[in-house]
């Protein structure tokens, strides 16, 4: 489809881009900047509404195939828009953004939303690289947004360095893949590989190099080392965003690469991801156990969650893939909800230590209950959304008879429950230091409510989402 025709299907992204530029412009003339956030919110909501209302049933290779709208990318497009909407709400609730820079923050968030969708809609190596760099570059900036905070600087810098090395490595892998197959189109790569049948060892090296970049994006061990530091140092709303947004889209790309371009190597990569999955969840969970900083705990938790999602890839069967999509949606909502609560609490206590959650249940029962529900969902306890995601990926693994992985994951789930409940314990079982109820900014309440209701609804009626996920598996 040519560029002009394509624009008709590019409206949600256009809305975001226009919103971004509009904010950048308005920012110059406006002293109070808060309303710009609401403007951004309006933009993302509008984009979301439009995207949700116009779901094309077939595959649309927009812009000469550089932006593919298919059920798969639609799923991630809507996920991305939800993520970015909630992130803007979080940013609105967060205290600590330098007032001067607020406008740019919302603009960047609007832009990064576009970047996320690009990632999901990329079907060739070029667009994959560009969109990843798009999101990464914006993320580097966002992570360092509170530039007077040493931690924020450091997070940003580490993210940049690690991200750039990973990107360069990935690019090197891409170049080899290009050389081995003569194509940058995922379809072309598949055809080339299917044709030759004999997959040389260099292909494996290329694949490994490529996976470095993708694994960096989804923070799979051992390419996760940046994640805890960055999530801890970045401003909380950004940290929340980073744990879900780029990760979710990273999975989207990974799925496309694996299932479109590299089905010929399925044996190789499925066992590779089985190992990475086990390693990732184990590392994430075990490291999380001894954390005392809530953001850091959530950072490791999000690493572990990536490990669970990888189980679906290791399984590489229908239910596992449905599980991945389902898991990503559920996990995104839950984690964003949890970070929202962290914002609320940290706004007041100024401390990110878990001890600042002490007795929260008495001070602000609703907030505490919400966080408890989020953690229960993350721990995979029914009947909440997180549970069903976990069941599906477990199911995928079991169907493939990867018993060892299943057992490792089971043990990990128990370990995970321990640290999630460490926080729950702090909220419910420990006496509060004071009885001042936490301040509840409206955007935070809204974000929490969205997350809460969504995960409860998905938990009790998982069928629609599952249905959607299974329908979205058409690349």
């Amino acid at each position: 489809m040519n560029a002009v025709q394509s624009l008709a299907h590019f409206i949600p992204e256009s809305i975001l881009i226009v919103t971004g530029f509009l904010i950048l412009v308005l920012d110059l003339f406006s002293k109070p900047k808060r309303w710009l956030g609401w403007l951004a919110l309006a933009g993302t909501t509008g984009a979301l509404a439009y995207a949700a209302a116009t779901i094309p049933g077939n595959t649309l290779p927009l812009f000469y195939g550089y932006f593919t709208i298919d059920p798969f990318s639609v799923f991630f497009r809507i996920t991305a828009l939800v993520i970015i909407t909630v992130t803007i709400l979080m940013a609105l609730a967060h205290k600590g953004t330098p007032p001067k820079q607020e406008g740019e923050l919302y603009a960047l968030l609007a832009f990064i939303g576009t970047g996320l969708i690009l990632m999901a809609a990329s079907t060739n190596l070029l667009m994959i690289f560009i969109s990843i760099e798009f999101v990464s570059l914006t993320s580097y900036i966002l992570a360092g947004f509170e530039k007077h905070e040493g931690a924020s600087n450091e997070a940003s810098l580490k993210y940049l360095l690690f991200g750039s090395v990973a990107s360069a490595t990935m690019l090197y892998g891409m170049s080899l893949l290009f050389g081995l197959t003569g194509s940058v189109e995922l379809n072309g790569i598949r055809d080339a590989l299917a044709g030759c049948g004999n997959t040389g060892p260099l292909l494996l090296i290329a694949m490994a190099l490529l996976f470095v970049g993708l694994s960096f994006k989804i923070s799979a061990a051992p390419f996760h080392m940046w994640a805890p530091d960055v999530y801890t140092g970045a401003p909380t709303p950004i940290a929340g965003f980073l744990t879900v947004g780029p990760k979710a889209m990273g999975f989207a790309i990974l799925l496309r690469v694996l299932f479109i371009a590299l089905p010929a190597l399925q044996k190789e990569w499925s066992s590779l991801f089985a190992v990475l999955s086990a390693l990732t969840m184990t590392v994430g969970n075990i490291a999380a156990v001894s954390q005392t900083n809530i953001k850091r705990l959530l950072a490791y938790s999000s690493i572990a969650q990536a490990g669970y999602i990888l189980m679906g890839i290791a399984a590489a069967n229908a239910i596992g893939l449905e599980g991945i999509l389902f898991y990503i949606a559920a996990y995104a909502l839950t984690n964003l909800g949890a970070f929202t609560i962290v914002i609320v609490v940290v706004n007041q206590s100024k401390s990110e230590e878990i001890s600042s959650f002490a007795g929260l249940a008495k001070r602000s029962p609703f907030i505490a209950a919400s966080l408890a529900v989020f953690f229960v969902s993350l721990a995979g306890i029914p009947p909440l959304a997180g549970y069903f995601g976990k069941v599906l990926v477990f199911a995928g693994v079991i169907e493939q008879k990867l018993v060892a992985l299943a057992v490792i994951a089971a043990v990990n789930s128990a370990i995970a429950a321990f640290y999630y409940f460490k926080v729950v314990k702090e909220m419910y079982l420990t006496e509060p230091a004071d009885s001042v109820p936490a301040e509840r900014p409206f955007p935070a309440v809204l974000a929490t409510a969205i997350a809460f209701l969504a995960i409860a609804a998905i938990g009790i009626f998982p069928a629609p989402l599952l249905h959607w996920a299974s329908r979205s598996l058409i690349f």
Partner: protein
Amino acid sequence: MTPIPLNHFVIFSLFLFSIGLYGTLTRRNVIGILMGIELMLNAANINLIAFSRYISPNPETGQIFVIFVIVLAACAAAVGLAIVLAMYQNRKTVQAEDIHILKW
């Protein structure tokens, strides 16, 4: 005429890549690390162009890819230096070993 064998380009780029990676791993200075990254990107670029020329049915693919890579590298350099600058303002250091308040 016999063109230069493709493998020679690949090996050349491999070495360049390795040297760049080595630099990122060992330079104490953040700017040094960034330089290493540039070398790695260039290595990839050589590959892309070489393969584009030798293998791809669409010989422009690699070149255009490289153009985008170079632009993105420039963007990354800009952002990276901005971050380094912000860092330097706060912490008065650009030594990688001093950047470790975030750990564990």
